[in-house]
């Protein structure tokens, strides 16, 4: 398990992926009150690919569908349309039995370390569960040795295995979640806001740990977060999501340095300024619209200062501009003027 540098061949490819949820009122209400069926397009035809050994991040505000993508990739939801291709095989429509060997290789770390660990199990049993389930070690002694190794890998001690989750702080619990995820010897980790519930000093510990583990084990991360500073620190490439669609996908450094989509610019402008340069932020008007009834055309147009008639009627498709794919009519038509000094020093 040597250090793998990001290679050209993608380990995961997502093509035209959609997931629709039925949020209709109950049948009786529909019949009596004549209410129509209501569908929520949580993920609406997205494409991206993740290279082996890299960290690919999804950023967006709550309700934009980023967690749905995470759940689709690990197989907790099935896709409505589109493909999820893991090492050349479409895993989107697989049955539980067919999915099992792939599930060993794709593991997930959840946001809330208080809810994702069984409070009635000892830590050693929590971590041993994937080892037993996938028959990765045989016999009590071998399993115990493997659990100890995993605990030490996440900077806990063998004695911690005897304790219950409530005896640990939030940061230590997240370490346990990581140890459990690593127990099945995965290649691909889906991390859904893994540090959002933690304090900043603990967040730094967990982020450093994740970076070290990636280097040691050659892991690939799909990292989901709303915190742009965290995403900047950890990502190789990133995708900005808005109302179920990707608006900008590309190398993290390029996007942070030169954001092109108006929504990306707006997001970057919301980062509080720790340098205290006295720069006045321009808070953007408006809020994320209701995804049940999204705006026509480009879903960002009601909040976009550059929107015109075409933006209101026609949904933009992603186009490559340099190294990034951008879904914006304004960028295509060169209408986006340098408004705020967003790119300065970023």
């Amino acid at each position: 398990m040597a250090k793998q540098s990001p290679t050209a061949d993608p380990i995961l490819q997502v093509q035209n992926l959609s997931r629709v949820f039925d949020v209709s009122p109950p049948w009786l209400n529909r019949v009596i009150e004549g209410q129509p069926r209501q569908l929520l397009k949580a993920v609406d035809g997205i494409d991206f690919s993740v290279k082996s050994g890299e960290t690919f991040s999804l950023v967006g505000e709550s309700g934009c569908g980023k967690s749905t993508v995470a759940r689709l990739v690990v197989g907790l939801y099935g896709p409505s349309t589109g493909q999820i291709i893991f090492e050349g095989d479409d895993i989107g429509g697989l049955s539980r039995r067919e999915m099992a060997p792939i599930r060993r290789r794709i593991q997930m770390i959840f946001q809330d370390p208080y809810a994702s660990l069984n409070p009635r199990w000892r830590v050693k049993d929590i971590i041993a569960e994937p080892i037993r389930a996938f028959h990765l070690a045989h016999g009590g002694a071998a399993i115990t040795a493997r659990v100890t190794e995993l605990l030490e890998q996440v900077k806990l001690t063998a004695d911690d295995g005897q304790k219950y989750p409530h005896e640990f702080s939030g940061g230590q619990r997240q370490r346990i979640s990581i140890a459990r995820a690593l127990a099945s010897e995965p290649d691909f980790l889906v991390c859904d806001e893994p540090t959002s519930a933690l304090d900043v000093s603990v967040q730094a510990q967990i982020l450093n740990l994740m970076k070290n583990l990636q280097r040691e084990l050659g892991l690939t991360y799909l990292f989901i977060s709303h915190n742009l500073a965290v995403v900047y620190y950890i990502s190789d490439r990133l995708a900005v999501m808005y109302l179920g669609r990707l608006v900008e996908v590309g190398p993290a450094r390029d996007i942070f340095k030169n954001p092109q989509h108006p929504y990306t610019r707006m997001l970057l402008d919301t980062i509080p300024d720790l340098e205290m340069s006295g720069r006045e932020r321009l808070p953007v008007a408006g809020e994320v619209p209701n995804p049940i009834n999204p705006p026509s055309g480009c879903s960002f147009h009601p909040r976009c200062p550059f929107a015109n008639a075409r933006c209101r009627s026609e949904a933009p498709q992603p186009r490559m501009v340099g190294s990034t794919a951008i879904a914006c009519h304004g960028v295509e038509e060169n209408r986006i003027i340098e408004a705020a000094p967003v790119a300065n020093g970023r």
Partner: protein
Amino acid sequence: MALLEVDQLRVEFLTRNGTLTAVDDVSLKIEEGEVLGVVGESGAGKSMTGNAIIGLLEPPGRIAGGEIRLDGQRIDNLPYEKMRKIRGAEIGAIFQDPLTSLNPLYSVGQQLVETIRTHSDVGLAAARSRALELLNEVGIPAASQRIDHFPHQFSGGMRQRVVIALALSANPRLIIADEPTTALDVSIQAQIIALLKRLCRDHGTAVMLVTHDMGVIAETADRVAVMYAGRIAEIGPVADVIKHAKHPYTDGLMGSIPVVGQQTERLAQIEGAMPRLTAIPDGCAFNPRCPKAFDKCRQTRPDPIASGAGEVACWLIEQEAHHG
């Protein structure tokens, strides 16, 4: 005289396993119209300090020592009814979760009118027009229709605007804002901070802004107090504390925040975690995690020592003073 003076405040919890000290000898001042940021990690005692000031400590928590003075008058020992008059009229409060701060069974207009009429002697019509004025001021679109809507019909950001309108309704001189933007999305967070800043400047309201987010403090506060394990580690003008942190904890905290635009291979990290209230170490509470700790830190607890325009509770400062 400062608007608010907190003098050696001590908050204790009586539990089956003995007394826990959640806030320990905290002293701070807030001047008229000033924004004081109180920052710290969860369990540092920052919300507890805020709750003690507005008299909303939940039992078994209680103020076990010290004084809180508003305009020179003690408010920490007032009877419940008297304190209730001060809350709202003199000190407003904004909490983290706007949904739990609003009554779901009344329209936002009814709640505003009730609050306005509790604190000033005005008629129904006058109170309603004042409510409408407030809703316009906090930037709620179509306020004349929205005034009759219920909290669940508002989005999170709009609800927090309503809560700010409620807090401002009696023109208090001090607002305690406890994590006002934590539950909100980043784009909404920027809007709410800008709003809070503008309104407090216009009304001359002082704010105690309790948060774990250094970025929010950097943008909003005039001075900042950094809390650790129930005590103030460092207090001073915001630029000094953020750019030239003197306490090793503040320094570590600043280093552990990832910053966009800074290429870092590894974040600075403080090893370990904040001690639980049941196991606060002897001497300086930070000493087991401090890279610069020496013998004195393990034995004697440092009191805040004046340094520059602020105060730092760290023996290193004293050492420097001796050598320098």
